[in-house]
């Protein structure tokens, strides 16, 4: 270990030490002023984000004897994750006070989970992938039960924990099998071993291990058929946690997934690009992507609850991103994930604003009737979010889908792109329904004077403006984001 090693995971180190230190600092913060803990966490997340931004165009490096890799993709994901987490912290301050959830442990847990995500995007070894997935998951199990003693929240925590522990079991067992077959857990060595020894590519043990690792990771991104936990957990967890899970977890798990896929690229006979999907994997990924897009969008159509609809929407978007993985274009996938994250976060701003008012938290469509006219700002933000999620220009969602489908078509998966376009058209039905309820329906009972409360919270407004601006700016100036991703040298996900 030396200092250069530490630099390769600098954002992770900042987040992890910050999280542990904040846990102790929080002990000294009086109960009435827990928002101070929130602000400190905000600073830590921002500092980690800035450190990642400063490193994003640097050289690709390996650290800790090849266990972690620092490249533009990883730092880009770090920036995305830290910004998302910082926005979630801003959103949580008022919401937690209103819902009686203002416990100081929320913020250290969020930072620790974030540190796991940051480690996951840097992972260049299957063991680090496992470690990072555990580190990001375990705080999330606790966070989803944070609205204790609300039953839905406890149920969400237990469901997530039990299924998540099972998925982790698959993952680590798969790692063991891969190690047994190839004698290494480092993705770069694995790829080299596969290239040296073509006989290994048809090894049953290796394939079984690969399948198990895939199951574990597909569970984390909630791809069909490993998605059953997602709607209940997303609905039961506190809305701030849902926002964090739906955006950040997905981005982190996808980059880890792509690195694993890249480690097996040598299963394919030709090898030219930095990131390739093996012929053996491509049909499987494409099939799962197609099913996920179809199931996610069709089921979202039937939902009567905005929060639950967004849960299915997140499943559907995992399908789109997975199509990008099948095409082998990491840039398009990460770009898409960024676009999706900000659009979803913008939608959650509205949900959290609604949840921060007096009375029970109610996310049925009826509860949103007429909201767009009572609080025009929230209405506009929701409209932006929905347009972006459908993929209507000039929002980020449009550019994201454009890059994605272009990559999918370029990799001879035209049928997958067609399914993607068709399901996107279908998704307009339920995304626009939200807007219809928001602007065109009268509330059943006369609402109290709530618009003031909806717009009052300054930190939430900052989060709202930032996420809305991101949706628009990424849509209008995509090249700025792409420059971050491809600004450095040509990056190989696994070397």
């Amino acid at each position, binding site marked *: 270990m030396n200092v250069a090693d530490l630099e390769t995971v600098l954002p992770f180190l900042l987040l992890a030490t910050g999280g542990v230190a904040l846990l*102790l600092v929080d002990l000294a913060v009086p109960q009435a002023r827990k928002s101070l803990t929130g602000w400190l966490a905000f600073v830590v997340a921002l500092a980690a984000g800035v450190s990642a931004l400063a490193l994003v165009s640097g050289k690709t490096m390996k650290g800790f004897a090849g266990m972690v890799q620092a490249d533009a993709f990883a730092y880009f994901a770090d920036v995305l994750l830290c910004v998302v987490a910082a926005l979630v912290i801003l959103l949580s301050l008022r919401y937690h006070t209103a819902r009686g959830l203002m416990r100081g442990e929320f913020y250290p847990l969020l930072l620790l989970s974030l540190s796991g995500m940051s480690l996951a995007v840097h992972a260049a070894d299957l063991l680090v992938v496992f470690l990072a997935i555990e580190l990001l998951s375990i705080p999330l199990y606790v966070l989803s039960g944070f609205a204790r003693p609300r039953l839905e929240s406890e149920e969400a925590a237990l469901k997530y924990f039990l299924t998540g522990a099972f998925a982790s079991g698959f993952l680590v067992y798969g790692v063991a099998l891969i190690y047994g077959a190839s004698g290494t857990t480092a993705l770069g060595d694995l790829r080299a071993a596969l290239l040296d020894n073509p006989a290994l590519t048809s090894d049953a043990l290796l394939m079984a291990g690969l399948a198990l690792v895939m199951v574990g990771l597909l569970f984390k991104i909630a791809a069909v058929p490993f998605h059953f936990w997602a709607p209940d957990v997303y609905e039961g967890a506190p809305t701030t946690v849902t926002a964090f899970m739906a955006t950040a977890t997905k981005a982190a798990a996808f980059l880890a997934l792509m690195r694993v896929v890249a480690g097996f690229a040598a299963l394919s006979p030709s090898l030219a690009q930095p990131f390739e999907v093996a012929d053996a994997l491509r049909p499987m990924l494409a099939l799962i992507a197609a099913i996920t897009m179809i199931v996610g969008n069709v089921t979202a159509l039937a939902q009567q609850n905005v929060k639950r609809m967004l849960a299915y929407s997140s499943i559907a978007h995992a399908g789109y991103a997975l199509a990008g993985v099948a095409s082998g274009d990491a840039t398009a996938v990460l770009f898409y994930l960024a676009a999706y994250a900000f659009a979803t976060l913008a939608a959650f701003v509205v949900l959290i604003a609604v949840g921060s008012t007096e009375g029970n938290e109610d996310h049925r469509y009826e509860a949103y009737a007429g909201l767009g006219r009572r609080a025009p700002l929230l209405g506009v933000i929701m409209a932006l979010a929905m347009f972006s999620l459908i993929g209507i220009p000039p929002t980020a969602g449009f550019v994201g889908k454009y890059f994605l489908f272009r990559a999918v078509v370029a990799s001879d998966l035209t049928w997958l792109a067609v399914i993607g376009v068709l399901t996107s058209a279908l998704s307009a039905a339920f995304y626009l329904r939200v807007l219809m309820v928001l602007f065109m329906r009268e509330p059943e009972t006369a609402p109290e004077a709530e618009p003031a409360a909806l717009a009052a919270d300054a930190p939430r407004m900052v989060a709202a403006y930032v996420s809305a601006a991101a949706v628009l700016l990424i849509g209008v100036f995509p090249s700025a984001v792409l420059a971050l991703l491809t600004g450095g040298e040509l990056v190989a996900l696994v070397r």
Partner: protein
Amino acid sequence: MNDFLPIFVLLVLASGLVSLVLLISVLFGPRRRARNETKLQPYESGMRPIGPAQRRLPVRFYLIAVLFILFDIEVVFFFPWAVALRELGWAGLLSMLIFIGILEAGHFWLWRRGALEWEKMDK
């Protein structure tokens, strides 16, 4: 495996001894055929037992058990480190201090949050 042979032999002999002792009392002890419900009742100071004994237990015991697993692993990590410290030198001590620092942060947090208070844990 030869290192562990004596331990295995001792395990077999000790288990054999225990089985023998349990067998002796069955062989030599009196056997009374008539079933006597009262005699077979669990002892509850002479009262008829009220409710089953194996019901839900106070959660504090589980909490202690979980904490133990956490910190016992810490203790186990000490042994290989302790054997090798003279070779590892100051770098070894530093690594251990980082490890201990993280765990002790948790210990301190538990302490301050009252997880170690036996009497007031219910609140």
